[in-house]
């Protein structure tokens, strides 16, 4: 649960997980919970991933390869 400005306090948590398990993570927005839509949008949340996982190959895992394996695309 992040409470800091721009969710900055979540970054170390996310990076720690990405560091140890990049092949076991997927990205999610918690849709359809829009209760906080006036504070943060899915696009903003998504953009954080580039900060947490600056390496494109890592994002490829999180956004493409891992979901494909998990859901059987």
């Amino acid at each position: 649960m992040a409470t800091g400005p721009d969710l900055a306090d979540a970054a170390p948590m996310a990076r720690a997980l990405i560091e140890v398990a990049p092949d076991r993570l997927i990205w999610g927005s918690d849709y359809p919970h829009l209760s906080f839509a006036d504070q943060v949008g899915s696009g903003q949340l998504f953009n954080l991933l580039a900060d947490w996982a600056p390496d494109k190959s890592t994002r490829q895992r999180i956004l493409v390869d891992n979901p494909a394996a998990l859901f059987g695309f």
Partner: protein
Amino acid sequence: MPPYVAGPHPWADKFVPRHFSDGFGQLPFVDGDPLANQFDGSFLIGFVCKEIPHDSRLPLGIESRDPDIPSCWHSWHYAPQLSLVKWLPFARGRDRALPWRRGSRRECAGRASGRDGWPRRARRTDQCLPPAPGFSETMRPRIKRVDARCAELGWHLDFLARGWLTEELLPIFAPLRCSFTIAHMGMFRAEAGPGQRGYVPPRRRLRLGEADRDPIAWRPAQISPTPRQWPVR
């Protein structure tokens, strides 16, 4: 609009315009170019049957309260167009669509019996409990009972608890028979950092690859929505 959405969103007036894309797998406000086959949209997988109170014997019913967000109706409506063939909508009580769905001829998410192969999930929510060391032991018999019932039904069990309780519950989760997850990564407080108690054990499990008994590992065989087709950019 993406080709798999037929027309204007029926709840469009409920959304802040910049968030209009939230439900349709398109995120026009993100930075950079999307990757091919990028998983970038909301994806409603087999979802909740009911919150299970502590003293419950898993009645498997559905409650409905006044809504404050749209979710169920449009999810239900658009699921086929989003190519979701195995899908259960929320029944968290926020959805005014629940009475509507009860009256429909389609299968109801909260029933114990349903079409074979449909994913089932029960969520146990304890997210509002104040810290009370040792409380997890009071939950052990109930969790065992729910676990046994979910295992019997083939349901997936999902836990939502604050970080302090998640940390306490990890030993109780380990021997569960049913497929289970911990929602929101255990709701650990980010301000305490990744070194806080409870956050490390899952990381270690991930590192060791203990997929079968890892509380935060999903078992796709039981909960995957198996889409017919996923839009390719």
